[in-house]
């Protein structure tokens, strides 16, 4: 997976998160849920966005807040799922 893929996924996820929160500046590793940047209902929306946008399915085995807790974590999760699908 190239750096361009990584950066493209990250900016796509960032745009989605930005569209749903009131702050514009946060750390890419900040825990979105623990910090209260988003509410718990956002978890399902973020999951749905990732499934729709990147054509992957989030299943029971992927149920781990570590996969979605931050911008960087979500990006890494998408890359991992895409890699698994491709490989």
């Amino acid at each position, binding site marked *: 997976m190239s750096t361009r893929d990584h950066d493209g996924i990250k900016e796509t996820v960032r745009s989605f998160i930005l569209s*749903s*929160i*009131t*702050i514009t500046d946060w750390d890419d590793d900040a825990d979105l849920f623990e910090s209260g940047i988003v509410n718990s209902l956002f*978890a399902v929306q973020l999951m749905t966005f990732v499934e729709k946008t990147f054509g992957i399915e989030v299943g*029971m085995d992927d149920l*781990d*807040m570590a996969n979605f807790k931050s911008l960087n974590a979500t990006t890494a999760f998408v890359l991992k799922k895409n890699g698994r699908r491709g490989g």
Partner: protein
Amino acid sequence: MVDRHEEFKAFVARHVAPFAEQWDRDQSIPDSVIAKVAQCGYLGSSLPSEYDGQGWDVVTFGLLNEAFGRGSSALTGVLTVQAMVSMALLKWGTVEQKRAWLPPLAKGEMIGAFALTEPGAGSAMQSLVTEFTQNGGGLILNGSKKWISCGQFAAVFLVFGTLGQRSVACVVPRNTPGLQIEPITDLMGFRAAGLAQLHFHDVEVPSANLVGKPGFALSHVAPVGLHYGRISTACSALGLLRGCFEESITHAAIRKIGDKTVGDMGMVRSLIARMGTDLEAGSSLCRNACRAEDDHLPAAFEKTLMAKYFTSRAAVRAASDAVQIRGASGCHGSSPVSRYYRDAKIMEIIEGTTQIHEDILGKIFVDQAGRFGTLTRSD
């Protein structure tokens, strides 16, 4: 996808609407009616064909619920809860769970119930006290659930509780020893929806019945079920609103007061104008929500909240106005509008109260300020 709305409306006109008042009085829906609904595949409308469902899109599911909502809110409640349980299992169940539970749910051989609400935890889901504890390789369940739709006749329950500090969801069959089911009667509306209180006393369930991973029941499993519950309820309320509208315009057109009809009165026209406009607006909101879900858009969540928020409140207004237009006859059980009036209020309570919807939607809208680029870092 074929537009099946005419088929659904014909089914309701023949098998539902003529009997809904009697079911309401009896506080019960005959098993034969639910069997007929099942035969038509309506209880598995949203499940894929690999699990014996119809695989219909969500727009069609919405039309089904709207048609049924026009005839009987209580019977529509069976569609609602079946979808809530089925879709939560479809999304988060294991392969084994799906193979075991989804085909009988899809075919209506088994009715499911969504056991989330507790005597002390309605809107506050985080306050659940129903408790699972480890017992060797299995689980022991203790606690109680209240206001569980279809609880009187469901064969399987999706029960939410805690396991240690983590929220869990677990499939519990009706015939499990230690599960006591107590019917709840004399409700204001939804009187035939078979509500029950469930009591769990040292109920043993296999760990394999847990749905989703521990810790994700309230954040991921319940929201999938509740989302489908809201789609169903939004469209059911739309159907009730349509019933109020059709009853009202018919009465207004034919009922004479002196040499004029009720519909000649400006004040009645005002009520009907609001009803008809709400019907059109509610239809648009429901279609938009269903289409968004079909497209798997994240916005489906808020569109569904808006649809349910709007149609449930509009249904309450319309039912009140429909009774007003009918006058004394609207206050009698021989007129469906008196049942609509009682059922409509329930729509504002189930799958999230109006106030919970306002709280969530208000926050969603405020948070969208970022979309418009009006915020700066100093904000």
